[in-house]
């Protein structure tokens, strides 16, 4: 087990290094400057500013400085937002994204998994057809359709919920629902599939023959195995929630990371782009590692290798 984790961890570090280098080179090759604007900037002023941020250094020296700082967790100042360091920006906005992401994921699991179980148990009845076709619609509706739709109905027409900002629990409902419902649909379909497979196993027939109550069969014997597809999907789902949150953050005016990611790229804020990319990459690596471990724990047929 430890060996497995150590190996995957080492792989993760390598992946992160590769991503850092690639991002650094891509950013350096991208046309445009963080300091350009509609009004032209005089070359001598530009040179002053560039020197301040170290752009006048040779390329590999810049890469090395940047990498060694990054290893210490320092990503430098934002090239665009004066007085703010990348670390500050991340530490301000990451908790918001984390909260939105975990709420959405929780919602997705709370709705998706029970719905999937019910649909499997009540296969080919209305309790199967209705939720599953709704889920299909949910998967097909992207968040940029779902979000404004929810805002329109619950915010503007019914005036029940706020549609912009991030000031308290009420403000979290619509964004978390927008992001969560989409993944709830996925989880419902995956869980249904997993459960159906389990319910058709021989040991289930044996259990039924022995008179084990149906609820024990479903919840005790089948759920663990039936959840495997959903667990496998958790890693990618989290990645999706993080990258997908940009849309939701924009629609509902939420001060999270997603907005900075896009703004960093549009502003050519090199240091910010690097910091955020590394953070996202690290998150995804860690989440996939956790998902793998959970996968193996749940599925005795797999072994750590």
């Amino acid at each position, binding site marked *: 087990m430890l060996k497995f984790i150590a190996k995957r961890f080492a792989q993760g570090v390598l992946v992160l290094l590769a991503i850092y280098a690639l991002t650094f080179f891509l950013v350096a090759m*991208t*046309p*445009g*400057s*963080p*300091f*350009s*604007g*509609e*009004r*032209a*900037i*005089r070359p*001598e*002023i530009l040179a*002053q*500013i560039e020197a*301040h941020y170290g752009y006048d250094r040779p390329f590999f020296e810049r890469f090395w400085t940047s990498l060694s700082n990054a290893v210490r967790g320092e990503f430098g*100042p934002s090239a*665009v*937002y*004066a*007085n703010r360091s990348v670390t500050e*920006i991340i530490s*301000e*906005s990451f908790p918001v994204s984390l909260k939105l992401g975990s709420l959405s994921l929780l*919602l997705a699991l*709370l*709705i998706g*998994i*029970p*719905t999937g*179980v019910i649909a499997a*148990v*009540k296969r080919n009845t209305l309790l199967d057809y209705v939720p599953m076709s709704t889920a299909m619609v949910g998967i097909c509706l992207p968040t940029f359709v779902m979000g404004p739709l929810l805002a329109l109905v*619950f915010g*503007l027409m019914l*005036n*029940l*919920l*706020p*549609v*912009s*900002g*991030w000031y308290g629990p*009420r403000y979290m*409902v619509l964004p978390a629902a927008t992001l969560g419902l989409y993944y709830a649909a996925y989880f419902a379909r995956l869980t249904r599939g997993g459960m159906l497979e389990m319910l058709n196993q021989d040991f289930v027939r044996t259990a039924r023959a022995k008179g084990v*109550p149906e*609820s024990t069969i*479903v*919840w005790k014997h089948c759920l663990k195995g039936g959840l495997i597809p959903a667990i496998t999907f958790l890693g990618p789902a989290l990645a999706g929630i993080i990258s997908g949150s940009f849309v939701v953050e*924009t*629609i509902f*005016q*939420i*001060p*999270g990371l997603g*907005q900075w990611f896009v*703004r960093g790229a*549009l502003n050519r804020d090199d240091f910010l782009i690097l910091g955020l990319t590394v953070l996202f990459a690290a998150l995804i690596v860690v989440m996939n590692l956790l998902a793998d471990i959970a996968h193996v724990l749940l599925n005795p047929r797999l072994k750590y290798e």
Partner: protein
Amino acid sequence: MSRSLLKAPLRAVGVAIMCMTLFACGGAGRDRVADAAARDGILLIGNGSEPMALDPHLVTGVPENRIIASLIEGLIAYHPTDDDEPEPGVAESWEHNADHSLWRFRLRENARWTNGDPVTANDFVYSWRRMLSPELGSQYAEMLYVIRNAEAFHQGQIRDFNQVGVRALDERTLEVALKGSTPYFLSMLKHYSFYPVNPRAVEQFGGMTARQNNWSTVENYVGNGPFRLTQWTTNQIIKVEKNPDYWDAGRVRLNEIHFFPIENVRSEETAFLAGRLHITSTVSPDRIPTFRRENAEALRIDPYLGTYFFRLNVTRPPFNDPRVREALNLAVDRQTLVDRVAQGGQAPAAGFVPPGLDDYPAADRVQFNPDRARQLLAEAGFPGGRGFPRKEILINTSEAHRKIAEAIQAMWRQHLGIDVGIYNQEWKVYLDSQSNLDYDISRAGWIGDYPYPMTFLEIFTTGNGNNDTGWSNARYDALIRQAQSSGNEPDRLRLMREAEGILLSELPIVPIYWYTRTYLKDPRVQGWNPTLLDNRPYKYVWLEA
């Protein structure tokens, strides 16, 4: 299967839904945020994007300006209705010599910084020195080149700031010697590049020329304006409240202003309609007809000192031929474009300098004349558009720009028989392409920094960093130079008029329309007058509950 089987999950879902409903209804009520805010004298403003800084010497953008205008006051303040009029700010009175090249400002005694310091003449000397220090790298330092020797100091040719034309005669008297006659100097002084900063705070948190200086964070901010900074939550809200120590605090009627950095125009509209904003930063053009129908009392269309135009790269044939450039201009039906495509009440641009300036009526020269356009194109060797090389219009990525470009593409096809393409680049790449002359035709806009024609005309002088067309005309350059040094206002106006005439006969550009500012405003907001530069004299604004 028993019914009890489903109880557990159903209960979980039920609880989840109940929780959501409870959240939803708990304290929701029907009272909208904007209603309560209006009663409390809190103005809610949609402010576009997150400000990059609130240090007036480091910022360049409109969202920043709109906030800083509440926090800091310059020598001259914004007039409540007319951006051309000077209004006493920190300066209570001023005088100038006959040719407007030497100015003396008398500072008011009761102007105070929020840290208790009086605002003195030396603060301005310090601030302008900071602005002109090359180490600071302020992008707007050029605005101060109007001051004698400011350019030389900024470029490092002189190191002694005493040679620059600004000095404090005493605590309350500031004398400014300009490079030449500048009657519009008072208007320039309203620009944030001339704003003072508090020397004590700047020194304490990093020093005069440090780019990384924490004096302008929410904890440390020192201002002298009608409001003071109380909260700055990134990407969410910036709050300012009435400053009791402001010299004219008695006139300030708002208790607070909240600025919301809402970048997405649809989200901003939704926030306005849901009663969370009193004023939006803009309106999407395609929604204007809807708002005209359904929210006519909220939709505002104000004049704005700006020109929307295309640049033509005159270093690339066939745009090196003035006949081709004129043909392209004459084949654009600007009225139709404004009425059908832009739809924001803009005026068709028949010249470059927009209307609205005192003593300088807009030119009325570039007209729609398809017959003449065809004839010119034929003379240039492309009868009926035959043989015209394939050219492309460069736009920065935006639906609104694309629609304008498509309309013009269609007009050129219809009237000239030429086929141009359209391609978009993302903002920073587009800026690069434009300044490297790596384009054929490029969409552009120019907003005046102060209400005087020079802010438009000087960009097309040879070597100006904003020319970006490759066009150069010795006579034009000479006229602009003469106008800048002339001591006589009628002469200056005549010289600028003549220069614009050259620009409009050579036409390295295709003027398209003169801007308006379209936005939504809650009818309860009072004292909010249309101003040419969109300057915001917040101290005259109030809310009717």
